[in-house]
C-alpha cells in the first residue's frame, strides 16, 4: 500500500500553489491576528478606541478649513464637512490596507523565521482589521450625516449607495494587492519602504479625496485621472451617499480589471517570495 504523507517539502516550482485549504485551517489564527491588531493598536493611550473616531473627524475639519474655506474648492453643492469626511473614510480603508501590508515580510521576519504557518494569514487579517476600522468610521459618518440632515442641510442618498459592500471589497483588494507587491519587493529592495510613506500621501492628492472629480471634467487630464483605480470608487461612494459628483461606470469597470490584475499579481509574487525570503531578508 502506498503511504500517505501529510506534507511533502520540495523546492517550489509551481507559479500558483496557494494552499488555500491550509490557510482555511488556520482561520482561528486569522481571527486572533485581527483581535491582536485591534487590541494592541491603542493600548496605553489615554483616549484609547476614541482615536478611531477622532482621526477622520480631525482630518475632515482640517480639509474643510484648507480646501473648502481657504482654497474654495467646489464640493458639488453638498455640505463640505460630509464631502471630506466620506473621502477620508474611504481613503483610510485603501491606504490602511496598503501600508498595513507593505511591511508584512520585513516586519514579521522574527516570527516567520521561527515558525511555519500559511503566510497569507497575515495580509488577510490586516485587510479584515482595516474593514473593521472602516465599519466603525463609516458609522461615524452616518451619525454625522444624520446630524447634518436634522440641521436641514441638502444632500440625497441614491440607489448607488447599495453598492457599498462591493466598493469596500474592491478597495480592500486593491490596497492589499499593492501592499503585498511592495512587501514582496522590500525583502530585497528596502528602497520601497521609504517610498511607501510619502508615496501614499502623494497618491491621495491624485485621487478625489479632497476635491471633486468634476473639477477636472472636460479636460484631457480627466481620463488619466480616472484611470487611477481609486478615483471611480470614491466618486461612486460620494454619489451614493451624498448625491454629489458623477457615476463614471466605464471607468469603474476598468478599475475592477486593474484591481483584479494587481491583486492576482500580488498573490503570485507573495507566494513566490514566501518560501525563501528568510534567506534574503
Amino acid at each position, binding site marked *: 500500500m502506498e503511504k500517505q504523507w501529510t506534507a511533502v517539502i520540495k523546492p517550489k516550482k509551481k507559479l500558483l500553489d496557494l494552499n488555500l485549504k491550509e490557510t482555511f485551517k488556520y482561520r*482561528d489564527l486569522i481571527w486572533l491576528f485581527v483581535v491582536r491588531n485591534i487590541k494592541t493598536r491603542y493600548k496605553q493611550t489615554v483616549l484609547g478606541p476614541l482615536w478611531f473616531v477622532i482621526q477622520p473627524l480631525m482630518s475632515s475639519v482640517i480639509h474643510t478649513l484648507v480646501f473648502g474655506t481657504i482654497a474654495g474648492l467646489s464640493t458639488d453643492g453638498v455640505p463640505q464637512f460630509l464631502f471630506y469626511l466620506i473621502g477620508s473614510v474611504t481613503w483610510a480603508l485603501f491606504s490602511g490596507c496598503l501600508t498595513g501590508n507593505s511591511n508584512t515580510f520585513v516586519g514579521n521576519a522574527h516570527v516567520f523565521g*521561527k515558525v511555519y504557518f500559511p503566510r497569507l494569514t497575515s495580509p488577510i487579517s490586516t485587510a479584515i482589521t482595516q474593514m473593521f476600522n472602516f465599519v466603525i468610521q463609516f458609522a461615524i459618518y452616518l451619525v454625522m450625516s444624520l446630524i447634518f440632515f436634522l440641521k436641514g442641510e441638502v444632500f440625497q442618498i441614491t440607489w448607488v449607495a447599495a453598492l457599498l459592500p462591493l466598493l469596500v471589497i474592491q478597495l480592500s483588494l486593491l490596497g492589499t494587492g499593492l501592499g503585498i507587491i511592495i512587501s514582496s519587493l522590500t525583502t530585497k529592495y528596502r528602497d520601497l519602504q521609504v517610498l511607501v510613506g510619502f508615496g501614499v500621501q502623494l497618491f491621495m492628492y491624485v485621487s478625489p479625496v479632497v476635491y471633486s472629480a468634476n473639477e477636472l471634467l472636460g479636460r484631457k487630464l480627466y481620463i488619466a485621472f480616472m484611470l487611477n483605480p481609486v478615483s471611480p470608487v470614491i466618486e461612486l461612494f460620494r454619489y451614493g451617499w451624498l448625491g454629489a459628483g458623477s457615476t463614471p461606470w466605464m471607468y469603474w469597470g476598468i478599475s475592477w480589471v486593474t484591481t483584479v490584475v494587481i491583486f492576482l499579481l500580488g498573490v503570485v509574487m507573495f507566494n513566490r517570495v514566501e*518560501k525563501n525570503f528568510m534567506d534574503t531578508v
Partner: protein
Amino acid sequence: MRSEQDIAIQITNLKKMYRLGTIGGGTLQGDIQSWWARVRGKEDPNSKIGSKAYKKNESFMALDGIDLTVYKGERLGIIGHNGAGKSTLLKLLSRVTGPTEGEIKIDGRISSMLEVGTGFNGELTGRENIYLNGAILGMTKAEIDRKIDQIIDFSEVRQFIDTPVKRYSSGMYVKLAFAVASHLDSEILIMDEVLAVGDMAFQKKCLDKMSQVSQDEGRTILYVSHNMNTIRQLCDRCIVMDHGKIIYNGEVEEAIEIYLGLIEISKQIIDLTHTQRTKRCSEGIKLQSIELASHDKWQFAVGEKIQFKLTLKSTKALQNIGFRMRVSCADNTSVSMLLAPKLITCEENQQLSVALEADISQLAPGKYYLTPSLYETTDVGTQDFYDHMNNAVIIEILATENFNENMEWESRWWGNIMLPPLKKVD
C-alpha cells in the same frame, strides 16, 4: 523490521545552498543592470572581474545531501559544531525556508520550537498570548479552550495570567511560552535548544514532560543541543553532523564520542590578535598570543605540568592585572580555574611577555577548553574584565600506559578531576 508505515520523516538527498556575501546588487538598479546584461549574454557589470563562475564560487552548501529516516516515536538527537547545518536542517523541516534540492516527506503534524514565545505580543495579557501563540503553532481555538487550564498550571504563572506579558520577568515569559509549546498535539516535535532556559527545576520539568509525551503518546521528537547531558536524557538515537553532512547515525553515546572527537587540539602558538572577544571588556591591555613552551602541541600525558608564555600589549598604564583560565569540558561544564592574581603591571603602550607554569596533573584524560581572561578586582570584591575569550585554547590529556590499571576513565561516571589516591593510615 519496521515498515514504511512507521516512518514519520523521510529525507532524501536534501541540499540547501546559500549565496555568500551581499545578496543581489542590493538596489533595484543594480539587479536590473545585472539582469539586462545576462539577457544580452554579456558579462554582469556588477560581478567581480573575472568571476564568471559567479554561482559556484560564491555559494555555500549549508546542507550537502542529507538522507535520513526517522520512525514514529523516536527521539532523535542532532549534534554537531556551529555551522555544521543542524539549524538549517530544522529550518527546512519546519518549513521556515525551502530546500534547494531534494525532498522531505512528513507523516503527521509537525510543530517546531526553534524559539519559544514566537509571536508573543508584549501588550497582550498572558491568557491572550496563549491563544495567539497556540494558534501560530497550529492549534485551533477549540483545542486551546480545552487545554488552557493545563497550560496555565504548567506555566506556574497563574497569578499573573491577566497581566500584559511585557511586565513579566524573562523567566516567567519563557515558562509561559514553553507551556504553550509543550501542549501541542502534533505528532512530531522539533526543538532547538529551547530547554537552555528557565531555572533548573523548570528545565527538569520540561525534559520530563518531553520524555513523557514521547513515551506515552508515541510522539516523535527531533532535538538539537550542545548540551550532551540533555541529549543523553532525552534521546534514544543521535546523528552527528559536520559540514552539511551526516557523519554518524546511531547510538547516543557513540555519537557524543564522535562529536567530541571532532574537536581539534590547539597548535603550539595560539595567535589571539583576531580572536573574537566574548565579553564586554575595558580597553587597556589585550592578550596577543599564548605560546606553549614545554611541549610542541597542547596534548599532554596525564600527570604532566606545562609551561607557556603569554604575550600582551597594553594601551594604558595598569597595575595588578590578574590572569586566569577557566577549564571546562567539551560539553561546556566548568571543571576548574587556573589563577594568577595580580600578575601584570605595565606602562602605557608596552609589549610584554610573561612565562607561566600550570599544574594540570590532576586533570583526568579527555579534551578540555581553556578560557583565558585578564581582570582587575576592585575593593568591594567585583571584577572588571580587560580581555576574555571563550574556549580559545583546546587541550587534550591522554591516558598513559597502565593508567588507572588500564581501565578507561569515563569522565561521565568518574569525573574530570583526579584527587590524590587515598592513603592507608594506621
